[in-house]
């Protein structure tokens, strides 16, 4: 039984179809990657699953099911009841996605208080912040978003996303705004949480390399439609759609500057005081 299932979703803005024929399934405990260029309709698909489409956009066909129950159809939106507990989402720009006037611990606690009647939300909040890899979580909980780095903000966002233990977590470009060095940490963290909680994850990215290794299955979106879907090996090793092939080609040809193995950094000047110094 799939966690999240999208059947023939079609979204229009005005009379232009911006999402046409999207079929997608996220099994519990698994990770599906959704790859596509910007403007291909990835985020709209995600927002539709949460019932958070912008006002101008409307669903014209298809349906979305969560845990087997219909949550979204063209006529009806029942996501209000499942948002948070059934399905949650984390966003691209971590700092903008946190309320600037509230302490981060407070924001995580709010999610806990809503869903989790038993247990002390404050204690649970600190546990969660620790679980997403914030050092000294009890101190971090008292900070405001502007006092945290982008990576730390994203960890707080993840804590908020998993606080209500959703069946499915949608991560929309969760690492695009982060340093390359932090990206791997955050993706590892999401992997780790997924394997521990058994929640399904939809990882959205424009970057195939982010998705390639971590997702069991990959869907490729192009101009509002899913043009290719399958297990990650199949999609990457034998792409059938030209757009996928292009993505894979870029993946296979990293900018190879030199064949030499990476050299260690030269020692810093401070390690070697100038020879003339003092003398």
């Amino acid at each position, binding site marked *: 039984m799939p966690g999240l299932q999208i059947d023939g979703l079609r979204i229009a803005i005005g009379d232009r179809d911006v999402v046409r024929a999207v079929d997608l399934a996220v099994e519990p405990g698994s990770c599906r990657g959704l790859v596509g260029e910007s403007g291909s309709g990835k985020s709209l698909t995600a927002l539709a699953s*949460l019932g*958070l489409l912008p*006002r101008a956009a409307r669903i014209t066909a298809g349906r979305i099911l969560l845990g087997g129950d219909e949550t979204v159809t063209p006529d009806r939106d029942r996501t209000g009841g499942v*948002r*948070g*507990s059934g399905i*949650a*989402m*984390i*966003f691209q*720009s971590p700092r*903008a*996605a*946190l*309320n*600037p*006037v*509230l302490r981060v611990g407070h*924001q995580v606690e*709010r*999610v806990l208080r*809503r*869903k989790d009647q038993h247990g002390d939300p404050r204690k649970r909040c600190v546990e969660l912040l620790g679980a997403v890899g914030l050092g000294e979580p009890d101190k971090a909980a008292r900070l405001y978003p502007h006092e945290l780095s982008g990576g730390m903000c994203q960890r707080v*966002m993840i804590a*908020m*996303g998993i*606080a*209500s233990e959703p069946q499915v977590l949608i991560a929309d470009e969760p690492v695009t705004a982060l340093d390359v060095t932090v990206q791997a940490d955050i993706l590892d963290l999401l992997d780790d949480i997924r394997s521990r909680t058994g929640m399904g994850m939809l990882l959205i990215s424009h970057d195939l390399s982010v998705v390639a290794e971590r997702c069991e299955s990959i869907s490729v979106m192009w101009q509002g439609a899913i043009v290719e879907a399958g297990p990650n090996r199949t999609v990457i090793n034998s792409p059938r759609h030209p757009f996928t092939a292009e993505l894979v080609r870029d993946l296979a040809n990293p900018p190879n500057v030199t064949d030499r193995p990476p050299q260690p950094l030269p020692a810093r000047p401070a390690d070697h005081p100038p020879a003339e110094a003092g003398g």
Partner: protein
Amino acid sequence: MGLTGAGFGAGRPDGTGPAAGPGRSARLRSELRQHPSLVVGGVLAAATLIVAIAGHIAPPHNPLALSPGHALAPPGPAHWFGTDQFGRDVFSRVLYGLGMDVAIGLIVAALAFAVGCAAGLVAGYLGGWVDDIVMRVTDILMSFPSFLLALSIAVVLGNTVRNVIIAVTIAYVPYILRLTRGSVLAVRGADYVLGARAVGASRSRVMTLHVLPNTVGPSVVQATLLVGWAILDVSGLSFLGVGIQPPSPELGVQIAQGASYITSGQWWVSVFPGVAIILAVLAVNFLGDYADDKLRGRGS
């Protein structure tokens, strides 16, 4: 900025930046140095409040006691500000009236702030027909000059302190409402609002916890300035005879009562209440300037 920065550094021989975490009193001192309007406004406002409260608790004379034998006595040791045409002590009346006007100004600003923020938040966040109705009513209210609007409402409602407060509040709500709605429209689409909704926050929670705190900045500045406007409008209404009525020692009432004596040389009956209004409004405007400096740009 460069000038204040230099002054700031020169005044702090230890040369540590703000990151070093100066104590509370040091922070207050540097705040006062950088914002002269806070000093002037604070001193004036504190003086106004102290004087007004003292005047209510222990006025030198009863502000309402008539003593026809001492009518229109010039300022002197017995009556610092002189007496009016009924022999009442102008000093006591000014103190009492000042307290009254400041209290009314604060109440009006608080009411207008509360109503304007709530309505602006609902209109801006919900949008659609709610927004249409609220904004059309606001447009109608704003098509009248606020003083004329307050005047006509006060005339219709009748002359009591409560009705004057209601009238002036209605005239000021649109200013706060529009500001709040504008900020709400800007914040409504912010990522953290979407984020809060994505993890399941209810509509009312999103509005009160995530939208409102990020939009009140400009409205707080406006509400501070409204205190001054309200003092002016209430005393203006009373001066014209449609606000607070004699024998109440409201400042506008006193100016009106003394107006006919200015030409015959008894200036003190009108001038002292007038100066009191000026100082009170000045104090509020300086504080509003400071609030503007501190909060400008918040929520946008």
